[in-house]
C-alpha cells in the first residue's frame, strides 16, 4: 500500500475512460467513450442535458457500473479495485444528502475516518475544509435544517477533506445562489493552484471558461472534442481567437486600426466603445500572451485582458448543433 501511495504521488494524476459505455435497455447513455485526462489542470465537461456527463462521472465514482469498457483512475479500475482507485479522489456528484441528524463536523469526521486521515489531523482538516466553504458558524448545527446550498458546501468540504489529487465535480455550483456560485468558482480556482486534476461538468459556459484549462464536449453519449479551450474555440472559428481588452482611458480609433490592428497575427480589431476592444487573432495561448505584452509595451493602459467567453459558447453551439 505504501509503495502504491508513493507511485501515485510521483506520477501525474490521471482519469481515463477506455471504451466506456453505459446502456439502459435500448437507450445508450454513454457510447464507447475514450478520454484520457492527465496532469494538474482543470477540465470542463460539457454537453446538453442527457448527453451522458453525469453518467460518465458516476461511473468514475462507483455510483453506477459501466455496461462495457473501463473507468480508470491513476490506471486503477474503479469497479474492480474501488478502494484503491478512489483513494486519491474527492468527488461531488449531484447534490448529496447527509444523514440529517449529524452535524457537518460529525459527517466530515465520518468521511475523514473512512479516508484514513490521521487522527491528529482530522479536526484541523475539517476546520480548514469548512472554512474554505465558509460554513464555520454552522459546523455544530444539525444538517437536517440546512438549505440545499449549505449542504452543497458541506459536500464540497467533504470532497476536499483528504486533500485529493483528483477532484470529480458534477455541476458544483448547482443549486447555489449567485454569491454561492461565485464562491464555488473561486474555490475551484484556488484548488487548481494546488496541483490537482479537476474534472468538472457544468452547464455554465462562462464558469468553464473562467475556471478550466481544457474542455471535453460530449453529446448523445459520444465524445465530440477534447482540447484546450483556445484550441476548441480556434477549431470552430477557423484558427481564430478573440480577446477582450479593457482600457483605463479612451483610445483613438485610428491608433487601434494602425497600431494594434497591424500587430503580428492580429486579424481584426473592433471597438465596443472607446475603452473596450475586441481583438481577433490567429493562434493559441502563445500568441495571446505575446499580444498582451505588445499592448502593455504600447502603454495603452490595459486594465483587463481576457479571452471572449462567447468563444466557448460559439464553439459549444456549433459542435453540439452539428451532431443533432
Amino acid at each position, binding site marked *: *500500500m505504501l509503495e502504491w501511495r508513493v507511485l501515485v504521488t510521483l506520477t501525474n494524476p490521471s482519469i481515463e475512460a477506455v471504451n466506456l459505455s453505459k446502456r*439502459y435497455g435500448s437507450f445508450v447513455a454513454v457510447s464507447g467513450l475514450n478520454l484520457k485526462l492527465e496532469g494538474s489542470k482543470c477540465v470542463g465537461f460539457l454537453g446538453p442535458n442527457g448527453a451522458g456527463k453525469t453518467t460518465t462521472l*458516476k461511473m468514475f*465514482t*462507483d*455510483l*453506477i*457500473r459501466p455496461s462495457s469498457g473501463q473507468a480508470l483512475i491513476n490506471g486503477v479500475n474503479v469497479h474492480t479495485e*474501488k*478502494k*484503491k*482507485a*478512489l*483513494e486519491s*479522489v474527492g*468527488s461531488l*456528484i*449531484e*447534490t*448529496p*444528502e*447527509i*444523514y*440529517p*441528524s*449529524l452535524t457537518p463536523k*460529525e*459527517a466530515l*469526521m*465520518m*468521511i475523514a*475516518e*473512512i*479516508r*484514513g486521515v490521521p487522527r491528529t489531523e482530522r479536526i484541523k482538516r475539517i476546520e480548514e475544509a469548512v472554512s474554505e466553504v465558509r460554513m464555520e458558524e454552522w459546523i455544530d448545527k*444539525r444538517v437536517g435544517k440546512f438549505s440545499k446550498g449549505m449542504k452543497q458546501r458541506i*459536500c464540497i468540504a*467533504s470532497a476536499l477533506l483528504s486533500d485529493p489529487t483528483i477532484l*470529480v465535480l458534477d455541476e458544483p455550483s448547482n443549486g447555489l445562489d449567485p454569491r454561492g456560485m461565485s464562491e464555488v468558482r473561486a474555490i475551484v480556482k484556488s484548488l487548481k493552484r494546488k496541483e490537482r486534476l479537476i474534472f468538472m461538468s457544468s452547464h455554465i459556459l462562462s464558469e468553464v471558461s473562467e475556471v478550466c484549462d481544457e474542455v471535453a464536449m460530449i453529446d448523445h453519449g459520444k465524445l465530440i472534442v477534447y482540447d484546450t479551450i483556445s484550441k476548441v474555440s480556434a477549431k470552430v472559428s477557423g484558427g481564430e481567437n478573440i480577446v477582450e481588452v479593457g482600457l483605463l482611458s479612451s483610445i483613438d480609433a485610428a491608433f487601434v486600426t494602425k497600431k494594434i490592428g497591424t500587430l503580428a497575427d492580429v486579424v481584426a480589431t473592433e471597438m465596443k466603445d472607446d475603452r473596450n476592444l475586441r481583438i481577433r487573432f490567429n493562434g493559441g495561448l502563445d500568441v495571446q500572451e505575446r499580444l498582451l505584452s505588445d499592448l502593455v509595451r504600447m502603454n495603452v493602459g490595459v486594465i483587463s485582458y481576457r479571452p471572449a467567453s462567447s468563444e466557448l459558447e460559439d464553439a459549444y453551439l456549433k459542435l453540439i448543433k452539428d451532431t443533432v
Partner: protein
Amino acid sequence: MPSSIKQIGITMKYTFLDYFRSRRFFILLLLTFIISAILTVLVGYYRPPSFLGDPTTDTLSFRALTFYSSWWGNSVTFVIILGGIFFGGDAISGEFQNKTGYFGVPNPIRRSSIYIGKWLSAFIAATVIFAIFATITLGNGLYYFGANVPIQFGQSLLYAWFYLAAVMGFTFFFSSLFKSSSMSILLTAILFLFVFSLIELLVSSLINVEPWFILTYGAGIIGNILNPLGFPAHVSHNPIGPRARFTITSYAAYVPEGLAIIGLYFIITAVLGLIFFERKEFT
C-alpha cells in the same frame, strides 16, 4: 487507508448516531413505553389470572412462567417487527431516494462495508429498544414473583434477539430491492404484520403442510418455550364447527427447527440484500 473491517465500524458508529438522534428512534421508544405502560397498568389493576396465574392452585414457578409467557411471549415479536420496520425498512432504499448514498458511496469504501455498517447500527438501535422492553418485562416479573425468573425466559430472550437479527436481515433485503423508502417500509410492514401470518394459517390448516418456510413460524419458539403447560406438540388437530365436523391443523416448530429457520432467513436475506446493494445503481 483503513481496512474494510474498520470502515464497517466507522459507518456503524455514525449511522447509529444518526439513528439514535432521529425522530423515529424516539417514536419507537415511545411506542415501547406505551405498550409496556398499558400492560403494567392492566396487569397491576385487574391482576388477570392469564398473566398472574391462580395463587390458590398454581405453584410460584408455574405462575411466573405464565406471566412471562403472556407478557413477553405475546408482545416481543411485535416490538421486534416494529424495530425492523423502523430501522431497517428504508435503511438501503433511503440511500437512493434521499441521496445519502451520494455522500458515502463515492469514497474509497466497499459497498459491503456500508451495508454491514448500516445493518449493525440498525441492529444495535433495535436492540436498545428490545433491551428496554425486556428490562420493563423483567422489572414487572421481579415485582410480582421476585427472583423467581424462569430459565425459559432467558432462552426466549436469546431466541428473540436472534429473531431480531433475522428480521433486520429481511428488512434490509427488502429495502435493497426498492429505491422508494415508503414502498420498502410499507411492504415490509404488510409482510410481517399480515401476509406471513396469513400464509402460515392457510398452509397449515387448509392443506396440512408445515409452514417451515415462513420466518414468523420459526419465531413461534419465542413464545412456545414459555408455555407453562409445556412446549406444544409439533402437530395438533383441533376440531371446529358444529359437532366438530372440521379440524384445523396447526404446527409448532421444534426449537432446533425454529432456530434453523431463523438462521437461514438471516443468512439468505443478508447475502441477497448485500448482492442487490452491490449491484444497484445510483441512476
